[in-house]
């Protein structure tokens, strides 16, 4: 028989315990709010105003009207005109999503009815970021240039008087695996490094072995390194596994230097380990450590540009995203793996990681106590 009183006794006890652990309650309430907020406001799978470098051919009225029309579609935001080389660099570094190159004698060819081609190069490493923009440009109104055209050419065209050649750079077949692989490397490393380190140190505290460890002649840095190094090895094994499978099964190219990639990811691993260690100095038990880990990982996945295009997010979300190691790791891996980035191209993604390690690591070490005080 189920006793009503015993049930109530149990219920009462559970509520009491729940009240003693406000962190868990806060988290269970905050989690859906954060998700709702991020999904509702921050995440926009239809990114607009994508930065586009303009490599100008002839500065003609036609060119101005064309870029104006594209800008009006709200998918493109033009930068320039700039030189070809600069534009290539901006695309490689991820500063621009597109490069629009207008040929030098654009106006003359149009006037002669020769249908010149403009070239739109797209950074296709994240296919979902460019899909709608590309649709917008191919659906461009054939009469867009009518106002400027000589009368003879204006008569009800079925096609615009020029061609748009789209070149999906680095991922011509538009494969999502190209985006998933860097994303997976990043998220898996984030998850395992942060949670595992946080738990490894908290476990010592929870089981009481920390007191013993502190009573013995070992320095905090020695404890930290001793705990972390095994997981760095684990991290690199994870990376290797993903890279091998990505190359063999999904045919993801490896265009850049593998060494640079591994070094850059080393920095990323260090960033995550410093977060894990910082959490372990704050968490009182393993459950709290786990909760903090989840709290860090969720925004990382949502705001880094892995699940949803980074440029689709409002400014405030992008600001948060810029502070997360995963954001930079994603750019780093995409850049090196898919675009063949060199050290110079990768530098803008490396220094934020280094800064992160420095700041968070300093906080962790400051919080770590050599005594039980």
């Amino acid at each position: 028989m189920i006793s009503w009183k015993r049930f109530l006794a149990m219920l009462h006890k559970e509520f009491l315990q729940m009240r003693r652990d406000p962190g868990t309650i806060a988290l269970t309430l905050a989690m859906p709010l954060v998700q709702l907020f991020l999904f509702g406001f921050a995440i926009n799978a239809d990114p607009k105003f994508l930065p586009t470098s303009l490599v100008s051919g002839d500065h003609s009225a036609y060119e101005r009207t064309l870029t104006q029309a594209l800008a009006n579609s709200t998918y493109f935001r033009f930068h320039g005109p700039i030189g070809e080389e600069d534009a290539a660099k901006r695309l490689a570094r991820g500063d621009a999503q597109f490069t629009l190159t207008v040929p030098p004698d654009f106006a003359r060819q149009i006037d002669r009815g020769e249908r010149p081609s403009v070239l739109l190069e797209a950074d296709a490493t994240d296919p979902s970021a460019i899909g709608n923009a590309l649709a917008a440009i191919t659906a461009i109104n054939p009469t867009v240039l009518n106002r400027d055209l000589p009368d003879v050419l204006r008569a009800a065209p079925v096609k615009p008087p020029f061609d748009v050649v789209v070149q999906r750079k680095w991922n011509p077949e538009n494969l999502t695996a190209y985006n998933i692989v860097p994303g997976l490397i990043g998220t898996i490393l984030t998850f395992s490094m942060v949670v595992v380190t946080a738990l490894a140190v908290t476990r010592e505290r929870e089981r009481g072995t920390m007191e013993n460890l502190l009573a013995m002649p070992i320095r905090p840095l020695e404890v930290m390194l001793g705990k972390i190094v095994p997981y760095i090895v684990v991290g690199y094994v994870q990376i290797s596994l993903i890279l091998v499978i990505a190359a063999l099964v999904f045919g993801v190219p490896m265009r850049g230097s593998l060494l640079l990639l591994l070094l850059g990811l080393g920095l990323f691993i260090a960033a995550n380990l410093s977060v894990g260690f910082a959490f372990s100095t704050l968490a009182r038990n393993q459950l709290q450590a786990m909760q903090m880990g989840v709290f860090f990982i969720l925004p990382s996945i949502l705001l880094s540009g892995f699940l949803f295009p980074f440029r689709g997010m409002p400014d405030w979300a992008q600001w948060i995203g810029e502070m997360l190691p995963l954001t930079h790791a994603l750019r780093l891996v995409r850049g090196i793996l898919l675009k063949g980035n060199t050290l110079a191209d990768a530098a803008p993604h490396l220094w934020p990681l280094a800064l992160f390690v420095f700041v968070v690591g300093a906080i962790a070490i400051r919080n770590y106590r050599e005594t039980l005080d």
Partner: protein
Amino acid sequence: MTDTDLAIDVRHLAKRFGDRKVVKDLTLQVPVGQICGFLGANGSGKTTTIRMLCGLLTPDDGEGTCLGLDVRRDAMKLRTQVGYMTQKFSFYEDLTVAENLEFVARLYDIPNRDRAINEMLDRMGLVDRADQLAGQLSGGWKQRMALAACILHQPKLLLLDEPTAGVDPKARREFWDLIHEMAADGLTVLVSTHYMDEAERCHRIVYLADGRLIVQGSAEEVVAQAHISTWRATGHGVVEAAKLLRDAPGIESVAAFGQALHVSGTDRDAVAHALEPLQGRDDITVEETEPTLEDVFIHLLAASGTKTEHAA
């Protein structure tokens, strides 16, 4: 006595947690080679004091040395010369006995590691259990392993925090034989305990109440310093008499020892007066007796809080 003969020499130690003072103005000197028993009710500050002595907690006030090393400034050096056995078992339960010892030996960089470990296993009778997981050992064996790990680096000062709590009497006895053996070799031991028989085996006893040192000295000195008078009542009527006596003026503690009742107070005449109603009863015999160490501690416990009922 010169300072170098003192293994522990601390003055006016104090420790707060938040705004709660847990240890207050504690001055303690323990000569080299002595076994010092640390007594006091739960929460009286024993563990906190021990942690300050080995540099695990920084005192808010006071200063002093252990083994001539400053407890504040030389904490790291102190750690190499002190063995600290925590109140709660704090070695790795998912490592075997031998693996735990090896970890400790590596941390202390003990020369001839394997030999040192094997000798220690042998000495502690742990050879048969060397490959057992520490988590699967029973209480007594766990304590032994912890002790082995604490003395592996041959400390000069051993701090033991309730090392025999929850250990059976035989294992306790063996544990203490070991401690005496080591003290004979010049090791200084500070050991906290709740057991009277263990307190009696110490060269010196220190009693804490509410973070303050109340008495210290040899067992005889502590008994003499307490200035209490104790009467022993036996007979069928004592159980019911105990209730009456507990509230009687002048009686500060009433404790049952098996069939007998020990009644103590600092004012001899007041206790005698309170006991008068029992004198004539034929189911109770009352006689004055020498207070034992236990009577003294029950009295101290009662004095530090309210009157306590105590069954030994």
